[in-house]
């Protein structure tokens, strides 16, 4: 049922793409390529994404952290997801979606602004464990924000 709902959503998105107005510049196109939660036709909020099979499994999170380092994820996104060459993974802002499936897809398929594709290099099972680790980084996205400081006098 969940799988069915998910593929329906993909269909809706695919259908909508054909009706999108032409984008004026490559810059704006870059921004639009990001995954969005806006879903015309209503009902997106109630959809359940496919779950990570390892979600909440502490052993998988530990293993995932190991893979996260072995495959050099940490070098771009930070050991604790603070970002750097790549975007941070510990806040609530996701260019291509922060749900487990989207993170999994980002790892396997890559993303156009520099995320490499790991298909054929990271086995699915390991990728899901990396997703579990990444999910563990963002348990409390609301608590993560840059504190404000005294302004330049």
């Amino acid at each position, binding site marked *: 049922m969940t799988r069915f709902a998910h593929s329906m959503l993909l269909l809706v998105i695919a259908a909508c793409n054909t009706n999108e107005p032409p984008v004026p510049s*490559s*810059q704006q196109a*870059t921004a639009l390529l990001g995954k969005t939660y806006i879903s015309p036709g209503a009902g997106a909020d109630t959809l359940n994404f496919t779950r990570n099979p390892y979600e909440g499994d502490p052993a998988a999170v530990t293993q995932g952290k190991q893979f996260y380092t*072995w*495959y*050099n994820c940490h*070098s*771009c996104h*930070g*050991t*604790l*997801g*603070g*970002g*750097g*060459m*790549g*975007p*941070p993974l*510990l*806040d609530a802002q996701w260019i291509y979606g922060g749900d487990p499936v989207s993170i999994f897809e980002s790892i396997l398929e890559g993303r*156009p*602004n*520099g*995320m*490499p594709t790991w298909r054929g290099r990271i086995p699915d099972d390991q990728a899901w464990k990396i997703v579990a680790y990444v999910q563990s980084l963002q348990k409390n996205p609301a608590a*993560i924000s*840059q*504190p*404000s*400081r*005294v*302004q*330049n006098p």
Partner: protein
Amino acid sequence: MATTRTRTLRLIAAVPLITLLAGCQQDRVRLEARKGGAPSNAPLTELQQDDGQWVMAAKNYASTRFSGLTQIDTSNVQSLALAWSFSTGQLRGHEAAPLVIGSTMYVTTPFPNVLYALDLEKNGALKWKFEPEVDRAAQGVACCDVVNRGAAYADGKVIFSTLDNHVVAVDAESGEQVWRTKLGSIHRGETMTAAPLVVKDKVLVGNSGGELGVRGWLKALSVSTGEVVWTAYSTGPDSDVLIGPNFKPFYPQYQGKDLGVSTWPPDQWQIGGGTAWAWISYDPELDLIFYGTGNAGVWNPALRPGDNLWSAAIFARDPDDGQARWAYQFTPHDEHDYDAVMENLILELPINGQNRKVLLRPERNGFMYIMDPTNGQVLSAEPYGPITWAERIDLKTGRPVLVQDKRTGNRLATNVCPASPGMKDWPPSAWSPRTRLLYIPMNHLCMDYRGVEANYIAGTPYVGAEVEMYSAEGRGNTEWRGSFTAWDPVSQRQAWQIKEKFPVWSGAVVTAGDVVFYGTLDRWFKAVNARTGDVLWQYQLGSGVTGQPVTYLGPDGKQYVAVLSGVGGWAGISALGVYPEQDPTIGLGFPIAVPDLPDYTAQGGMLYVFTLPGPAPQQQPQQQRVSVR
């Protein structure tokens, strides 16, 4: 056009006969430059003498960034005002020097590397823009923001690098592409960020990517066709490094076959770094180019026993065939990411009471090197800021005397000074022949460095180090993390210093009006008395300054100062939406040293151009130009 004609007549009438004879060559160049923007075909050796223009990032082959212009001086710089500005439409770190050719200014942006041509006859109106179609994926292999340090000019062409490893030549008049050559691959982690340098009929440019196991090189391309004429690798066998019979280094440790292979563990040289990602100088008299090579790859030195030649070194090469004449390694077996890509200034200095030609080099490892440009002998090497990693440079061997406690490898070394970005990083210094001082944008940072394991996966970072940087005054000090310093290389001491809240990540320019300009990450653009260090004027720009200021004469005969603002680069990563306080080793340990930067600046690229109020002063144009010779 009326202005141009009037100016031409005035110039001819005003120039005394004697200087007319002596300076006719220069005048021709100057006049040509003022003819409504037609780009000059004069050789760069002539064009760079004209203080009205700015034809290469470093102003001249000697890399002095000194302008003979005098309209703006210490008595009037207080009235400097904004003439015009221009948004680049880009958000990331703007590290370029604008070029001024004739009556057109050329500006390159960070990725996607747009080239703008702005009409100086019309207050910077857009003439054309050139968008080179850069592979977006290149953003994912740029270690330290997606920067670009500027263009080169020759023969009616503006030539620059793109992040995805192309060099593009664009017709300076029409904005049409003339040629485009692919030089590297992002799949190996390569990018290109440097400003090329044109010498004779060749464009010289190197690659970036020392944090991704890239093998460094410098290539020479034909200015007219873009074809690669020669490639000199920084590591590997002599045949790849272009070391042959003419190689005559001063120190004996550099004599031997294939040292670029034998000073590494097996095959490590193939991913050994030494990228030539910043400055090149040229001495027409010696007919040699000088440029440095970056850090050894991988960062963790325990993984690459040996001296790791020719990383963190300088090469002198024949520009025609690329053959090395000499080399010298500043930091053997680099343990701290001390890339040796700093600018090389070719100067005449009195050394031991005798005037001689020298190569002056404010090195990232914290020592100020004065070298013999003919053979690479180190004449002196004194610290120009706080150093803990080495006691001194042994002039007999040319090698640093290491402090064991500060060595890294598979261990934690604390309080290592300078930090990885060095006493200074790529932001170039400026030299005034009037004050005989070098004006240096500096960091004031130390670090803790822990070597860890690293996996080489092509196209991903290859570092193996966890670094945290902090003020050289101590952890938590946010008042002094950078400096702007005037250094006297002859007496080997500091003339004056301005302490800055943040590392100084902009270039410098100094003028015959004895004013030196630089910008700060907290977005101040400053004019300083070159003799005293007094800040005479400052202006708050829209975003932090990581660009290289330049100065030139407008078609109206007035002196202008131009600078790009737009925070970014390695020093500016913390302003690009990352979380150093939650994850202290991100961004190679730099953001944690400046986590407060977002409180002072946001992103946004903008060109600012300043001048004095009122019309051009009624003085002889000849007086405008104090010879740089």
